[in-house]
């Protein structure tokens, strides 16, 4: 197994303790929960996606386990502006604030709350959530919209990561739009559209009916998206989707990712970051640059 050198790194303009970030929306609704994940070894954390108004999210069931994955339709619950206070105590930590909205103005406004208070090291634009009508993927399937939202948030002068949906015919068109809009990095990917029906109840099992699939089941899909984006774009890529082991991290890096986000794997073990790091880092490890994208060069 390949090992990496431990130590601080910078990816897409954000300084991180290691290559492993907590993915948006997973154990990221409170400052204390984010701090816990940092203490348990996350090199950085992405917050729950924050929007222009407080949102209770969809009715339940919101999340179920499926074969090799999770299916969720949380519906972007978040306390909106109140979240600024939530992460104020984490000012010295690598916190990326995930933002959503229905148009560039929304994105700019929400990001502004955090930019103004120094609570964000950077932003991640959620233009990819598959279960929020008018938000998320409704925006992230339109290159022009992605470009505008990216540009709007970039105007705050902090790094902007744009998180993409795999549920498009050609993800590179969206990646290129983000790049053109001034993104510092692309995050690939958000959940894959999915649905389960309870045959016993004769109805979709999620309150919102359909949702997003995450976890091991989508890992090959995420690797392919990262691969395609690496071929098409020049800004850094952060890989996300189904990562749960050190080898998964290396695989994502070889596909082209400079860092990764880990979400669903916390279900097996909340100490997943420590676990991965134990397998990934070694004093005599190689520099990440030596393996990022290496699978393209054979």
């Amino acid at each position, binding site marked *: 197994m390949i090992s990496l050198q431990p130590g601080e790194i910078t990816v897409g303009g954000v300084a991180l303790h290691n290559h492993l970030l907590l993915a948006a*929306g*997973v*154990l*990221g*609704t*409170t*400052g*204390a*929960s*984010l*701090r*816990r*994940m940092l203490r348990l070894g996350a090199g950085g954390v992405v917050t*729950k996606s924050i929007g222009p108004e*407080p*949102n*209770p*999210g969809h*009715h*339940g*069931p*919101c*999340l*179920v*386990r*499926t*074969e090799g994955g*999770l299916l*969720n339709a*949380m519906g972007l*619950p*978040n*306390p*909106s502006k*109140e*979240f600024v206070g*939530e992460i104020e105590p984490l000012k010295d930590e690598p916190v990326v604030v995930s933002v959503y909205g229905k148009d560039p103005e929304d994105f700019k406004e929400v990001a502004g709350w955090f930019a103004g208070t120094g609570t964000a090291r950077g932003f991640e634009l959620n233009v990819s959530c598959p279960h929020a009508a008018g938000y998320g993927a409704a925006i992230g399937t339109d290159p022009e919209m992605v470009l505008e939202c990216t540009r709007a948030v970039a105007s705050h002068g902090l790094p902007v990561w744009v998180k993409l949906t795999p549920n498009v015919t050609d993800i590179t068109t969206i990646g290129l739009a983000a790049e053109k809009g001034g993104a510092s990095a692309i995050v690939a990917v958000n959940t894959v559209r999915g649905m*389960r029906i*309870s045959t*016993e*109840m004769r*109805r979709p*099992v999620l*309150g919102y009916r359909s949702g997003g699939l995450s976890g091991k089941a989508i890992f090959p899909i995420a690797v392919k998206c990262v691969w395609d984006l690496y071929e098409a774009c020049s800004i850094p890529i952060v890989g996300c989707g189904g990562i749960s082991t050190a080898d998964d991290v290396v695989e994502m890096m070889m596909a082209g990712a400079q860092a990764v986000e880990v*979400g*669903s794997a*916390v*279900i*097996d073990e*909340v100490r997943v970051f420590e676990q991965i790091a134990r397998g990934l880092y070694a004093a005599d490890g190689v520099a990440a640059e030596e393996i990022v994208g290496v699978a393209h060069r054979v």
Partner: protein
Amino acid sequence: MSDLPMLPVRVTVKAVVEETPSVRTFYFEPGIPSSPGQFVMVWVPGVDEVPMALSSATSITVQQVGDATTAMFCLKPGDALGIRGPLGNGFTVSGKTLAIGGGVGAAPLLHLAVEGKVSTFLLGARTADELLFAPVINASSNLKIATDDGTAGHHGVVTDLMDEIDLEAYDHICVCGPEIMMLKVLERLHAAGVADRGQFSLHRYMKCGIGVCGSCATDPHGLRVCRDGPVFTGADLLESEFGRYARDATGSKVVFPWAKKAEE
């Protein structure tokens, strides 16, 4: 994670027992093999999915408070619910156990008492009509009752009953009830130097129930009530948000009325 539930399992309501005007027990089949203090996510089709303690392996005891619980109150024998569970850690007892329950919080403690694991049970309610499970509890443990209006047992709150109890004599003190009541119990345990013997079953807003979404994370350590709890020791709760605030569905803090001054 392989022991965590996958899709909800359909159970059929077998009987509905009106415990008090606002509390009903729903007996269902098949049962959920579980230990006392564990809970389930109850899917009321078309309405919502909400957490409920198991009052036995085949029942939940529900207080009507809003949409989902009101919808449940319309259920008749033969109707279906979806269940994900058992979830959470439950109570861990051995030796001599004191149980202190208030209102619908008696539900998980009933489960414990029926298994013969409770020596003494302090049960409180507003009024005699709202006392839950008293006859059943009385059959398996030494039951002491308090009602706010004095219509049964001691006239006063359930914590008053602790005056007559030698807390030191109990290995475990299991508590469930309204947060204000649990807070008063914790203060007494702390004063007596036995906070670590307390096992408190918390209620917090839950969405996933399996430790992923973070809705139920508590301050200051980010512990998840659904997965790291719902039962926490009194020692864990000292200097936590417990008794001061909780969060709603949006993740916004909601300060408890009695704590409002202190939080400002």
